[in-house]
């Protein structure tokens, strides 16, 4: 098996689609066209089978078990941690904390690092285009510590207004928390510049990588970010999984988050001592199945390879963008040169909900609404958009059908 790797991710769209059983169905009488990948991706057989294999072969609770199944499960779980480490180029496995998702990971940092270091008047810097999951945790910790939130503005093309940085980052800036890629606009943000500036000012930086992790190579060592968070379900992996990467020296000094089994060294009613990293932050039985399947998802992505994926996704993005431009009255939100294959748009005079409903009637799944970025839409003075988001298994034919469906829906609604 090691010698001749199984082909789990063929470099051919039609063959690749065969690996995703869900895609082959009709919705409301038409073949499904799934363009809601930024909400969650579909799962390849390789990932689904890793779950079945676990439950039919070696399901057991992990760590501290002396029996065979417990050892198999523990080894698989820790191997998955090692795969994550390699995938994002962290320096040690101890820097990889498994969480239930990006939201959980950000809350962990806000409630431990944030709560223990922020003081009244300190500043947390976010951007206008953050997801609610990277806003509300900071609002909560700001409220309890007296810290203030400042916000990086954007330009009309949906990019950070970097000219504002010098007045926004100052000596009171303690934490900068921004997304790597915007889920609402698709913009790939220049996080490296921000990280370096923040570090010069003495602030720590958390990157919300929920939307980056399936689309661009992430190298936490190069980025030099202090924390990096993402979810398994947006990268061909299962729901209920997530990762918090943190620099070891920060994780070491942070107080624990959840208390319970696994994260302790010894417990007595008088005195409890905590376990080493990464276990210190992993209280209770983890999502063993999910973590193992997340490891499988990483293997899947690695086999596809960034080069091939990026090529496909660039084609899709260009085609979708041109297609939308060709329809009168359609406006795209988010027109940065650096984007993942996400297009957010509105058709003049038409409510996104109406358009989304009529697309669904034609088998096309897009997302409508605020996409959990209300402050961004407040800035644009709209209440939301339609968002079509693509994955490697989408193809140009689907974009053609999407166009016809859009035209039909718009003509019905006009």
């Amino acid at each position, binding site marked *: 098996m090691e010698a001749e790797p199984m082909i789990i991710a063929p470099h051919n769209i039609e063959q690749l689609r065969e690996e995703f059983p869900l895609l082959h169905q009709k919705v409301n009488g038409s073949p499904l066209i799934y363009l809601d990948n930024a909400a969650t991706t579909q799962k390849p057989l390789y990932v689904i089978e890793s779950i079945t294999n676990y439950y039919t072969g070696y399901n057991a609770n992990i760590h501290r078990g002396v029996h065979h199944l417990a050892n198999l499960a523990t080894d698989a779980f820790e191997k998955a941690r090692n795969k994550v480490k390699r995938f994002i180029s962290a320096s040690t496995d101890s820097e990889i904390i498994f969480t239930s998702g990006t939201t959980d990971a950000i809350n962990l940092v806000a409630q431990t690092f944030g709560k223990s270091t922020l003081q009244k008047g300190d500043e947390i810097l976010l951007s206008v285009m953050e997801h609610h999951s990277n806003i509300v945790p900071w609002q909560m910790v700001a409220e309890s510590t007296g810290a203030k939130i400042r916000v990086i503005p954007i330009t009309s093309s949906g990019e950070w207004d970097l000219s504002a940085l010098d007045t926004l980052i100052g000596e009171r800036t303690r934490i900068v928390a921004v997304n790597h890629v915007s889920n609402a606009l698709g913009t790939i943000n220049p996080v490296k510049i921000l990280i370096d500036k923040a570090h010069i000012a003495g602030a720590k930086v958390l990157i919300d990588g929920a939307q980056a992790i399936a689309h661009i190579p992430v190298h936490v060592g190069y980025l030099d970010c202090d924390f990096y968070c993402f979810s398994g379900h947006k990268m061909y992996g299962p729901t209920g999984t997530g990762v918090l990467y943190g620099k070891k020296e920060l994780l070491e000094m942070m107080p624990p988050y959840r208390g319970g089994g696994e994260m302790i060294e010894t417990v007595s009613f008088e005195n409890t001592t905590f376990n080493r990293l990464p276990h210190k932050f992993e209280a209770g039985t983890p999502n063993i199945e999910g973590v193992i399947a997340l490891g499988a998802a990483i293997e899947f992505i690695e086999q596809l390879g960034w080069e091939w994926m990026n090529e496909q996704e660039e084609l899709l993005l260009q085609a979708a963008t041109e297609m939308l431009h060709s329809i009168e009255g359609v406006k795209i939100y988010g027109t940065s040169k650096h984007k993942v294959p996400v297009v957010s748009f509105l058709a003049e005079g038409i*409510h996104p*909900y109406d358009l989304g409903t009529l697309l669904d009637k034609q088998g096309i799944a897009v997302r409508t609404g605020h996409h959990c970025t209300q402050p961004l839409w407040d800035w644009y003075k709209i209440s939301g958009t339609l968002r079509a988001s693509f994955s490697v298994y989408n193809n140009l034919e689907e974009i053609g059908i999407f166009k016809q469906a859009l035209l039909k829906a718009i003509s019905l609604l006009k």
Partner: protein
Amino acid sequence: MKMGIEEKQQEVIDEFGVFSDWMQKYEYIIELGKELPLIDEKYKTDDHLIRGCQSRVWLNAAMDESGVILFTADSDAIITKGLIALVIRVLSGEKPTDIVGADLHFVKDIGLQEHLSPTRSNGLASMIKQMKIYALAMGRLPA
């Protein structure tokens, strides 16, 4: 003679019976949405907004001298508005007790049950719930 809730539902079902595909149905709903008499602007406030919907839905209820409830509503999405128009047509002008007890089977019968799923965030289910709450409250007022 005035039709009851049941007759009005039947009428809607008959009307939809002539459509052979989703497009015709939606064309009609969209038409209805365009026709819905708008709610008085003064009711388009947060008080009258129905929570948890993707499209915004405002609803107002008033009781007339004869003891029946008159509903007016609006939405910023036209399909939602069309669906609301159907519900209002069926429930508006009825007595509180009849509204509270009504089984709105017509939505399912015309093939739009998907819009009634309580987890669907289009507001139709929430609006019907709100209409029944109004009816319940108004039924308790002295006529």
